[in-house]
């Protein structure tokens, strides 16, 4: 950075009237009173009676409760790469990896816990996931009676997927070999003298 790139900003100075507060406060009253009395119609039009009705949310990028996606075979799509837990600024994702029981994949999460109370719903995990296995759903109603209940384990996260897959289908995970069909077929096994032995 060079000196000419630096733009020096000088804060504007308050006038005497502003420093007296009173005119400013009166101006403030104007605003609040306008909202209070004149904008009633707008307020009523935009009102959503929350538990009875729900606000329309942006389904594609609302950041609510997490879910763990399943691939078409109903298996957990996660490959336990720890990218989400690495990216997580709140350190709320805890994974234990293990050898997968399936032939097309080697790693899968034996344990996958998200502490929904610790989570700040920033969506970094979704960004980091190389196989689009973890996603944030538009569901924001998250209640429990104990802290323990708010630690979502793998089963619960998969259950969230089952509940939300109609609202928000899984993104197309054509990013890697893992998960859906992807380009699994594109990799060509080739015959060698050894494989024939």
């Amino acid at each position: 950075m060079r000196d000419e790139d630096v733009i020096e900003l000088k804060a504007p100075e308050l006038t005497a009237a502003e420093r007296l507060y009173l005119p400013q406060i009166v101006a403030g009253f104007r605003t609040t009173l306008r909202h209070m009395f004149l904008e009633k119609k707008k307020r009523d039009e935009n009102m959503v009676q929350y538990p009875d009705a729900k606000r329309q949310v942006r389904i594609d990028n609302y950041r609510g409760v997490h879910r763990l996606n399943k691939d078409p075979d109903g298996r957990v799509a996660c490959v336990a790469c720890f990218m989400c837990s690495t990216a997580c600024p709140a350190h709320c994702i805890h994974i234990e990896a293990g050898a997968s029981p399936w032939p097309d994949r080697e790693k899968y999460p034996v344990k996958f816990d998200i502490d929904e109370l610790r989570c700040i719903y920033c969506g970094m995990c979704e960004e980091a996931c190389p196989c689009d296995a973890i996603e944030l759903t538009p569901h924001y109603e998250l209640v429990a009676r104990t802290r323990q209940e708010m630690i979502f384990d793998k089963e619960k996260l998969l259950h969230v997927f089952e509940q939300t897959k109609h609202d928000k289908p899984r993104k197309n995970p054509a990013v890697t070999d893992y998960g859906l069909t992807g380009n699994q077929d594109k990799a060509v096994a080739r015959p060698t003298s050894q494989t024939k032995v």
Partner: protein
Amino acid sequence: MPTRWGALPNSGIDKNPTPVDRIIRDPKIVAAVALVMLVLPPIGLTAAWLAFGQPLLDLMKATDPAILQFVFSLIMMGLVLFIVIHLCAALILAERKISAFIQDRQGPNRVGFFGLLQPIADGIKFMLKEDVTPARVDKPIFILAPCIAFVVAMISFPVIPWAGTVELPWGGTLTTQVASLDIGVLYILAINGLGVYGVVLAGWASNNKYAHYGGMRAAAQMLSYEIPIGLGVLVLLLVSSGTLRLEVIQDQQTATGLWNVFLHPIMFLLVLTANYAETNRAPFDLAECEQELIAGFHTEYSSMKFALFFLAEYAHMIIGSAVLVTLFLGGWEPLPGVSLLHGNNTWWAALIKFHIFWGKIIGLIGLYMLVRWTVPRFRFDQLMKLAWKGMIPIAMALVVIEGVLVAVGIKVDPTAGFVGNFGVLAVHLLVNAVLLGFILWQLSRTKAPVTGRQDNLPEIEVVPSRPAGQGGVSHA
């Protein structure tokens, strides 16, 4: 991919409302209840009057006036306590509604039509909540603090001259002021000064650093802002009455029609502002600011202990408003400049006075709320600066000026009426205008940046950046 918008499936809560839900949300039922509540008391009172009116009057005629006054005082105390507590509940709802409207929301609207039953629900909730006492608090003080706060807020009410005196048809008078003290104003100031104990002790006893900070801030703040109030009262005493009795100060305004607010507009603003600070309300709620201190001094309080703090805050607002009405706003007199009810001591006039007094209080409280939801919170240094470098010098200047005015004989004459005191009013308005001009001149002479930081920050030294190309790749 285009963004899809959609409503999420509703939760099951309100698909199956409970019978209670159905009842309390039915406007018809709520209207019926309200109607009954509005109609029944007058009918009942009328019936009671018809049944027991004459014997009651006879009894009162026969009673010793002193005993009658004593009983009447008790009734007034009960009535005021009843009004204050119920008004608090109503004000809480009002505050929530007003804040909601200001913020383009609806506010509570689930309990009862328009949320009217919300105070009842709140009250029930306060009583049913678990009363948590943390393990390491100083238990006696922890329990004592909310009591102090509440009691101190309540014991100022007896000196307020609610509706002047009532002359009984058969002779003799009753005064609606429970305690007509010689030192009424000092009493108010003294009791207000005690208010800080509740807050400081709560903060101390909680054994929680946020609560502690809250308490400390509250102490500094309340001490600072008592000074402008005291100076303001001093000015009134100098110019107007020469007495500490609240009812006399009040009577003087009704007699001349010259409310003190017109004589001392700047002083009124100072005392009003100081009152906001005394009640710990926004923009001076430094003691409990949520963003920094969670809830300040009452962080550790729950259930009815917390409710007591809540009640105390609203009671403080009411008493502060009542004092302002008495000292500056002409008390129970409906209009300035004329003396409509002055000297009219009939029982029906007392009833009207009582209502006007409370109406003025509620109007001031409305202003409280409007200010709270309009003006952002002060920073602590700004708060202190406002008191010590702004309000107190101005108040002192006013005291000096008024002293000079009194010395040269410009003083309100209670017997001269509005016109007779016009000269005094003109002088005072001139003095206030000159003072305002002086303040503005002073403010325009000094400079303050918008950021609100301290006035004389050192210049930041700009270090020239390295010329390009000297960074290079380091192999080491």
